[in-house]
């Protein structure tokens, strides 16, 4: 990504170089104690990733509209002295806000979210990896065996990139699921498989050796430093 590389910016060390954009189109904010100026309309997630800060995500994908469903990307946003947890993938950068992407509260919340998800979908390798990365070694809820975390990636993929609309959400609450209209095979589905390609649960099944419906944690033992969260 292009940025203004004035000497001051680089040698100053503390502040981050500006994105190279029109002056009046920039907002300045602080992310993890680093001051940064980024383009208006960006989300916190985009800004943070541009700075090289890792924020885990599940329902976010660069090519799709941010949705804000999984809440794994939560960060602490401090605005007018009040701190709140917000989903960084949908939160637009704003002048003067302070963001903490990895505070204790953020970590605790993310761990709870992964614990909730993995207890419902233990077969997802994405989730098992996340759990290992966060050092989650115990699940305190009753294990279930579902095959969908309702991240909505497939629904958006189908609609936004494949220009179809064969699948969507039905029902609400705990009964919510992804399906075709009235559970019948959809006429507009071309069978392109994009939904399967993008799904973090079905395609990437965990292959570690474990009891069905159990936490794997194999990766923790193999390479404990491989997970940067």
């Amino acid at each position, binding site marked *: 990504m292009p940025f203004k590389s004035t000497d001051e910016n680089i040698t100053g060390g503390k502040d981050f170089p500006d994105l190279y954009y029109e002056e009046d189109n920039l907002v300045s904010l602080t992310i993890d104690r680093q001051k940064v100026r980024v383009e208006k309309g960006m989300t916190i997630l985009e800004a943070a990733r541009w700075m090289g800060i890792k924020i885990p995500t599940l329902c976010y994908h660069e090519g799709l509209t941010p*949705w*804000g*469903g*999984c*809440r*794994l990307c*939560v960060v602490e946003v401090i605005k007018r002295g009040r701190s*709140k*947890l*917000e*989903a960084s993938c*949908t*939160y*637009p950068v704003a002048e003067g806000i302070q963001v903490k992407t990895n505070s204790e*509260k953020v970590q*605790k*919340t993310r761990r*709870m*979210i992964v614990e*909730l*998800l993995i*207890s*419902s979908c233990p077969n997802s390798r994405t989730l098992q990896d996340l759990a290992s990365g966060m050092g989650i070694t115990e699940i*305190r*809820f*009753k294990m279930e065996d579902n095959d969908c*975390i*309702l991240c*909505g990636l497939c629904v958006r993929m189908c609609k936004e990139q494949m220009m179809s609309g064969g699948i*969507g*959400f039905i*029902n*609400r*609450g*705990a*009964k*919510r699921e992804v399906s075709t209209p009235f559970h019948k095979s959809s006429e507009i589905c071309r069978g392109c498989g994009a939904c399967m390609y993008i799904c973090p649960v079905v395609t990437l099944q965990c292959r570690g050796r474990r009891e069905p419906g159990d936490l794997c944690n194999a990766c923790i033992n193999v390479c404990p430093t491989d997970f940067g969260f």
Partner: protein
Amino acid sequence: MVKIKSPEDLASLTAKLQKEKNTEEICITVCMGPGCLTCGSQKVLESLKEEIKKRDLQEKVQIKETGCHGFCQKGPILLIKPAGIFYQQVIKRDIPEIITETIINNRIVERLLYVDPILNSKIIKEKDVPFYKSQYRLVFGDNSLIDPHKIDDYISLGGYSALAKALFEMTPVQVMEEIKNSGLRGRGGGGFHTGRKWESCRNAPSPDGVRYVICNADEGDPGAFMDRGLLEGNPHRVIEGMIIGAYAISSNEGYAYVRNEYPLAVANLNIALELAREYGLLGKDIMGSGFDFDILVVQGGGAFVCGESTALMASIEGKRGEPRPKHIHTSERGLWNKPTALNNVETWANVPIIIKKGAEWFSQIGTERSKGTKIFSLVGKINNTGLVEVPMGISLRDIVYKIGGGIPDGKKFKAIQTGGPSGGCLPEELLDLPVDFDELTKVGSMMGSGGMIVMDENTCMVDIAKYFLKFLRDESCGKCVPCREGLKRMVQIIEDITEGKGEPGHLELLEELTQTVKEASLCGLGKTAPNPVLSTIRYFRDEYEAHIMDKKCPALVCKNLIEYSIDELLCTGCGSCKRACPVMAISGEKLYPHTLDMEKCIKCGICLEKCPFDAIKIS
């Protein structure tokens, strides 16, 4: 119908209607609100009409069908004016007697009067009934004076004069300032300052100048029916408020989002809108002012979450009723991405009176930061169920005891739940708390939209928390993980606790979960959903501990933690319980003490009810 083309036209119509109104004429008002209707007010009305016709009294006596008066507990309600005689629990058979005695002979039918449960005295007039006496019915009071199908009834009470004042004597900005100065806060749950919302909506850029106003009549809280009462009983007041609001933010299009379960509200609202259009009070060139505005009624599909602002707007747009992130307020980017002023029914109904009487007058009612009155639907273990309107700042105790008449059957008060399903349960110690947005939030509950459920000593607080959690779990839209998965797990844990499978770490795990659900959820539903659990843990922790540690339910409610048995000394062997038991768990010979087989017992409690000698015991 002649069109009203100027404020003078309206004033002369009002004057004419008031003159026509014969204050001497006898008027029998029949409440046709939802509560009275279910108790049979339709039959009462029919036989009243018949009787009047039979005795040829049409000239002398007028009959008025109104919306809910509030005192639903005692329905069907008849109010005879001008004397103001209050008859309650009237049935069809009473009508001839009422006509003969009260209307013709001017005597009171004693047995239909309300009896004060404390003083045991009979009360004749509505205004002396304690239920009404301690209320301040600023918004709701007109319900008993108006036939919602007749716009003239509303106009004769000065209706639409606030609109005339706004349109012809004030600028939109002045109207907005007036509402701002009045301190009116949203009655739909959040308590957001209405004037400030309008201001940000007015100032938000809209390239094509389109802005919307919406009335939120989704009212999904279990046991709440304030908005329904208003919309069914006095729709014009809400309409007038919306037109004034539209003028203030310069919008020409409004929506009323009414839940599907309220067919009568939809019908009455549509009739009212049509009548207002015929008079020229709605539509093009309102009252000749050049201001155009119209309202469309949209029926919701009945999901609780569709009351949430962004879900509601998605639903109007024809999409899935699902919240979206609100980093930019709906007042700036709402319906179809246009600036939108969304307010609750009751909020809109407060607008005309503020414009009519002024911000200063209004802001004298209530507390420092909560102004005006609030309508609550008072339900649960309380003598006088119904809709009550009280000034902000009144204590919960006054509502429960003065208006509500205390707890039935001499039971002890245990808790009061305010704020609908995601409010909190407050214990006896907090009964002196004033009703105020901020005070209620401080103690872990909230004003919400006005649900108020009273619980007595026979209520298990863990069970109550479970009930609300289950409701919210089922009504969660399921979009975000903390709410969908978190609530599911919370219900599982609480179910374990009530089934005697609670373990020592459970309370802490619950508390940890509530933190995540509260802070990480996307919309207000998830953010407030843990309140019932948090508040019951906060104020009734011992009850949770009794369930978990001692496997006991102190209120004897949770089925898995109680046992039924028969006291041999009291049992006469009458066999009532044996006959009633659905699973034949009771055996014994006639006139000898019976025995109960715990293996078979499903703890339905029927035997307990049937035993005439109180021989069935729970432990």
